[in-house]
């Protein structure tokens, strides 16, 4: 799931006819029944005669799954609002929570979920049975939706990682084996750049989520909840190690430094200026879309490791479906959310609509994942991503205000990558800024020891 500022305008909207029909049905029924408001009282799931309508804010077009849901749940109608991806929608959600007119269900990325929990605007769905399906999800994902004994969302999508590389280019410049450690990757990057002065093997983007991924893999943690206090660890030893590593690449001039998942980065991949990157599974669709000229030349391998022989991965993204506290139909909303995650047909449809890698163990077994991908020359990367998801380090936490962290650290990193300071200094700055920020809001925080 991408963390972006980009509104995803390119979503075909649901056929207006369906919404109109649904609303007409509700209106007619309400009128015909003499204005009964009984449907909102009992159990909140409505009946076929008096269906309830829940609103879902999502930036992925899940209308197919929704149609299927409505067929099997005649008492619940779902109105899908396609909203821009990421930050602009979060802003609207925050405002809506304050104003008391939040939707019933919303798509929230895992890194921003704690910030929403902090607003008090999300429903604790443990009260509606969420605890019972805990074991259907991968452990690291469940840890990221549980707070203070409550469950505030169901994890919807994961972003297992892989090493995406342009095999043609690597072979051309004599990199015949894929690096399995980051140390090896740095060495290869140096050789590659020597042999190809106008190209780079790897990128170092000013992307906080990417830095998080590397730190996550290294076993470092930016936020640890110890009792009632956050331990803030931007300057932990693991962070320091990652910063030094990346700084080395930059100082040697061996890395492509444009922001990932923006046009110049895609252009770099298309022109061959950038030959590989460590990235999430959902990059596959973007590559096919934006870097068509290199179709068939890319392959996926397991992501490099910090320690040779280890298998510890992280994630770059991930989304969840949350129910807002203000909902008039909590049971209906939870029914929908739970169905989306556990129903086998829904799992297939969701993957195909572009949500990303499933977070459920059952979802991870759907045949759609186990396919050869033309963009990767027919390679089937299923085993790689499944393994990555299973070996993701379990205890990463995003902290109570990741949105702010992301904004600030993106800016600090951009400065560092433009030659004003180092990445380590950027992290130190962020540590100071974040501690001050949390304290000024009355949140209990201290530097991790």
């Amino acid at each position, binding site marked *: 799931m991408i963390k972006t*500022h*980009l509104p995803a305008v390119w979503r075909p909207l649901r056929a207006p006819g369906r919404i109109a029909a649904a609303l007409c049905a509700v209106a007619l029924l309400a009128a015909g029944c003499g204005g009964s408001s009984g449907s909102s009282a009992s159990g909140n799931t409505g009946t076929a005669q008096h269906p309830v309508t829940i609103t879902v804010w999502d930036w992925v077009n899940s209308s197919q799954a929704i149609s299927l849901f409505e067929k099997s749940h005649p008492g619940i109608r779902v109105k899908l609002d396609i909203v821009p991806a990421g*930050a*602009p929608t*979060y*802003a609207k959600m*925050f405002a809506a929570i304050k104003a008391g007119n939040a939707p019933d269900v919303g798509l929230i990325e895992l890194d921003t979920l*704690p*910030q929403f*929990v*902090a*607003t*008090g605007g999300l429903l604790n769905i443990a009260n509606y049975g969420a605890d019972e399906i805990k074991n259907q999800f991968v452990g690291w994902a469940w840890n990221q939706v549980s*707070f*203070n004994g409550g469950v505030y969302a169901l994890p919807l999508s994961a972003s297992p990682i892989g090493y995406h590389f342009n095999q043609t280019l690597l072979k051309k410049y004599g990199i015949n084996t894929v690096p399995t450690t980051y140390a090896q990757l740095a060495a290869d990057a140096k050789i590659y750049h020597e042999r190809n002065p106008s190209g780079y093997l790897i990128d170092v*983007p*000013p992307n906080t989520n990417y830095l998080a991924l590397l730190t996550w893999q290294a076993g470092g943690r930016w936020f640890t*909840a110890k009792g*009632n*206090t*956050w331990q803030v660890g931007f300057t932990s030893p693991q962070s320091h190690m990652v910063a030094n590593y990346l700084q080395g690449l930059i100082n040697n001039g061996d890395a492509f*430094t*444009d*922001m990932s998942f*923006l*046009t*110049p980065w895609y*252009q770099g991949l298309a*022109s061959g200026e950038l030959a590989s990157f460590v990235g999430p599974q959902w990059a596959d669709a973007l590559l096919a879309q934006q870097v068509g000229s290199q179709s068939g030349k890319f392959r996926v391998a397991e992501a490099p490791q910090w320690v040779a022989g280890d298998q510890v991965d992280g994630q770059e993204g991930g989304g969840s479906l949350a129910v807002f506290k203000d909902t008039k139909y909590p049971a209906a909303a939870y029914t929908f959310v739970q169905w989306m995650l556990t129903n086998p047909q829904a799992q297939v449809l969701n993957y195909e609509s572009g949500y990303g890698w499933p977070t459920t163990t059952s979802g991870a077994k759907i045949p759609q994942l186990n396919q050869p991908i033309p963009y990767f020359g027919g390679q089937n990367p299923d085993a790689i991503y499944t393994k990555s998801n299973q070996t993701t380090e379990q205890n990463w936490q995003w902290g*109570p*205000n990741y*949105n*702010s962290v*992301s*904004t600030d650290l*993106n*800016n600090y990193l*951009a*400065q560092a*990558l*433009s*030659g*004003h300071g180092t990445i380590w200094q950027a992290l130190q700055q962020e540590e100071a800024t974040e501690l001050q920020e*949390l304290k*000024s*809001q*009355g*949140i*209990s925080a201290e530097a991790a020891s």
Partner: protein
Amino acid sequence: MVTKDQFAAAALPAAAARPHRPHRRRQKAGNSLTWRSAGLIVPFAVIFFLFLILPIGYAVYQSFLGQQSSGLGLGPSTTVFAGLSNYWSAITSPQFGAGIGRIAIFGLINIPLTIGLALLFALILDASAIPCRGLFRVIYFLPYAIPGVVGGILWAFLYQPQLSPYSDMLSALGAGQVNLLSTNMVIWSIANIVVWEFAGYNMLILTATLNAIPAEQYEAARIDGCGRVREAIRIKIPQLRPALVMTVLFAIIGTLQLFNEPLVLSLVTKSVTTTYTPNFMSYTEAFSNDDYYFAAAISVILAVITAALSFIFLTVVNRRAAR
């Protein structure tokens, strides 16, 4: 094209003859306001109050508030009175300072260039028998017809290394691979967009003023044997003063509120961060960091700086005029 004589004969009598002071007041025997004629001003008064005074007042109020949580911050927070702490955070924020610094530099590049080019071409087109003079004026004015964000998108395409014909041109000219969006270049690139958009518009304002200068003044100068350049300096530029004051003032205000162009460019380059200008920072604070109170404080500071700078500028200019 309105001629000088037509203009002189029109509703504005002998503008050039009067010494120029901003806000000239004519003490007329005006009527007292009846309730019926008050109706003419009420609509404006109402919307002015509702959509200008009230928002600023509300922003000032909100700028003194803050959010307080406790513990891990995972429970709901309360709104508290925060005194001047938002203002203090803004003033001590290195990003805010950097943003102010950037628009200062930007102003120093942009205002002289825009107004300078406007003045230069207004004078050239006024002084010489250039063919198709009207056509040139229309061409120079055209970029103003392109809304800011759209112009930003257009230039963003033009700056992108892979798309940019200008990059190609520059490297053909031997400048090598110039990245117009790199950290060092991007402020010039933004300035370029703004100059492109507004030079022609300012030029037109100056041209209209020049057209109103009565012919007799030129006759007198010619008799004295003035060359064309002297003529420009002695006659035209002094008469242009009020127009120049106005255009520079608006350029200053525009510079301080810079948002559209950085917004667009931040999509294509990491050199433009989301706190690039104070206005952008206010937007980011409100909508990415969910800190409306801090954003309100930044907006208020920006409004105060704008008002103060404009006031200082006008005072300095008027004092010079009075001398």
